[in-house]
Each structure stands twice: as C-alpha cells, then as structure tokens.
C-alpha cells in the first residue's frame, strides 16, 4: 500500500541528526526493551508472519505513524495483531487488564530456555521451487507501476522504472500474498537503478539505488 511506511523520496522530515555511536543506548527507555521483547514473544505464538506484522504497522493512520516513535509503532501494530488474532480484546486494551480467558494459541508460549536457540536459528524465507528464474544477472528489466491497497514491498519511488538485474537470490515467500497468509514463493532479484532514472534532475549524478524485487514486480525492459 502507498502508506506512511513508504518513505523513499518523501520530504519534510528534517536532517538525520544521528546520536554519536558510542553514546547511543540500545534502548532509549526501559519500555522500548519490553516492546521489542513482547513483539518477539507474541510473534512466536504463530498467529502471524513477518508480512502480516509489517502490514499491521503500515496500516496505522499516517498521523499516528508519523507522530509515533518506532517502538510506539511496533506497540500499536502489536495491539492490532493481537486483536485481529482473537488473542486480546479491544476491551482489554482499553481497560489495561485481562478480562477474558486466554484463547488457544497456535504454538505454545516461548520458554526462556528456547529464546537464544530460537533467535540463533532464525526462520529462513527461502522456499523450494521447480520453476527457473525468469530473469538473469545483467538483464534490463522494468518494474511494474501497480498501486495495490494491500501489502507490497515494491516502493513507490521504484515503480515503472528501468533497471538492471544484478543478482538472482533464490525463491522467497512473496510478501504481497504472504501478508494474507499465502507464501506463494517467488524468485527474488537485486535490481539496480541509476539515480537519474529514479529522480530525474534531482538525482545525485554518480549514484545508484538497488532494491530486492520479487519476480511479479518485473517485466522485461522494452
């Protein structure tokens, strides 16, 4: 969706103002650490995947998204996911306490002893496929110019633009459908654009931008 998350090329956010690397705490407030940990443990219950959770965050109203810090966005997204999954009620969020019996969960709660093994294992997003990739390294392609209302990972700035396939990465779960629960694996490619093809006269003269693009985002360049 062309939501508040699609920030590439948007303006008006001011300078970056990084904190000095050696001074920046990993969490700026204790609650941020809890927000991260809750998001991971709730995710481990198995009711949503990474694309469902991204879509929950990007579906926040733009005023909320831009008016919130990043962990606030995560927290509001998590609340939405929990309600949509039937694990928590809106009335519980409103009252701030558990009011109903727990629902059955898809997977058991993550035990403390499982945390480090599970983080170290991760969850690969590649999937087997029997179809060969449609494009190869070095090939000129054009991105499609669709504007779906659902989740997608083709940013608006990189739509309808010609670029070059730089690398074929393998077959991955497809975010556009995975956000609806269907992994429908697709080949994934790094596609590199000349900055001038993306930004016109505003472009940095000696720069490129690369994205990782799923096969349905691409057509052969004309």
């Amino acid at each position, binding site marked *: 969706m062309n939501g508040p998350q699609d920030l590439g090329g948007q303006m008006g956010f001011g300078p970056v103002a990084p904190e000095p690397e050696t001074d920046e705490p990993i969490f700026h407030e204790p609650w941020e*650490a809890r927000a991260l*940990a809750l998001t991971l443990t709730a995710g481990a219950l198995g009711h949503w995947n990474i694309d469902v959770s991204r879509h929950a965050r990007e579906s926040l109203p733009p005023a909320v998204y831009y008016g919130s810090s990043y962990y606030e966005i995560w927290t509001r997204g998590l609340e939405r996911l929990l309600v949509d999954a039937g694990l928590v009620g809106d009335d519980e969020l409103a009252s701030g306490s558990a009011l109903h019996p727990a629902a059955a969960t898809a997977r058991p709660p993550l035990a403390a002893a499982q945390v480090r093994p599970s983080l170290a294992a991760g969850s690969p997003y590649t999937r087997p496929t029997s179809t060969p990739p449609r494009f190869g390294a070095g090939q000129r392609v054009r991105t499609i110019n669709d504007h779906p209302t659902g989740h997608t990972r083709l940013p608006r700035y990189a739509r309808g633009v010609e670029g070059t396939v730089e690398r074929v990465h393998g077959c991955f779960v497809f975010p556009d459908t995975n956000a609806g629960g269907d992994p429908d694996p697709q080949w994934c490619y790094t596609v590199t654009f000349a900055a001038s093809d993306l930004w016109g006269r505003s472009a*940095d003269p000696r720069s490129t931008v690369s994205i990782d693009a799923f096969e349905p985002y691409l057509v052969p360049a004309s």
Partner: protein
Amino acid sequence: MRALESILIDKGYVDPAALDEIIDTYQHDVGPRNGARVVARAWTDPAYLERLLADATAAIAELGYGGRQGEHMVVVENTDTTHHVVVCTLCSCYPWPVLGLPPAWYKSPAYRSRVVIDPRGVLAEFGTVLDPEVEVRVWDSTAELRYLVIPRRPAGTEDWTEEQLADLVTRNSMIGTEVLAPVAAPTVGIRDHADGGGGAS
C-alpha cells in the same frame, strides 16, 4: 506498554523470563562487535573475503553468527571508487546477528526518506564527505536480504592483528554512513621533530 505486558502475561501468552532473555541477548551478546569481527577477518584473510562476497550467510556462520534477521546475508565491499550505504525505506530491516538492533536514526523517517534521493547530503550529516568522483551505491532492503558493508581498511593498520582491527570497526562504517579514519602512525620523538613542529601545541 506495562498494561499490554501484564495482559499478555496474565493470559499466559508470554513468559516474563523469556522477555528478559530476549532483552539480555540484544543488550549484551548480539551487537556490532560481531560484524566488526567479520570485517576484520575479511581484511586479513583474502579467501574469507572471497567466501563472504560469494555467500555471506555461510561465511558469517563460520564465525558463529546467524539467525533472526540475518537468515539471508549480502556483503558489499567499499573500494576507492565505490561507497555502499544501506537503508530500509519501508520499515527497519537490519542485520541483527552482525550489527544488533538498529540505532534510532536508522529507523527515522529522515534517514529512510532521504538517503535514497540525496545520499551525499545524508552522509554529510554524519560528517562523511566523499570525493565527488566516488560512486555512491544505496541498498534498500526491500525483501529478506540483509546487508553488511565492508568498510575500507584504514591506512596505517598494515601490521595490526585481526583483534586490533576488529576494535577499530564502527557500527556506522558497516551500515555505510561512515568511513574509517586513517590511523596515526605511532609517534616517535625524533620523527616529530623531523616533521617540523613549528605550530605544535
């Protein structure tokens, strides 16, 4: 946050000890020191660098790093003609196993919106001013690939050990918003004089 946490714990969805374990992991164990060791190895072992560029996930696993948000790694190497910088314009994708959790600026709308359209302007806000002839390559992490930049090895470190080198590598240099400064040669009294100490102190 406290209310949400107590709801989830009261309903039995979340084990409080698991929360603490996650926080402890990213507070103390998984952070940019991991990536720095990858970089130092790449600087000192050409065969490792080659493996890293060919299959970063496997080469990083050789050093014991991997897992969540680093399942599919790509490594890009800065040279004297090309500088790489990484962003996630759509959310906050970042290679946790080698860099830990992202800094606040990496997740900020200011960085995410601008580095793709004005990379040199953004780098300048980090104090990083590149030669105009150097090509800037921006990597927008739009899928499940995660990127690690190998910064250029600073001049003056020719005889440093891998461990010393790892201590030199900053997090920002592995995102690409920083270049590592040359290391001053060990000062020797006589050379100081020979260099001409006219304006000294």
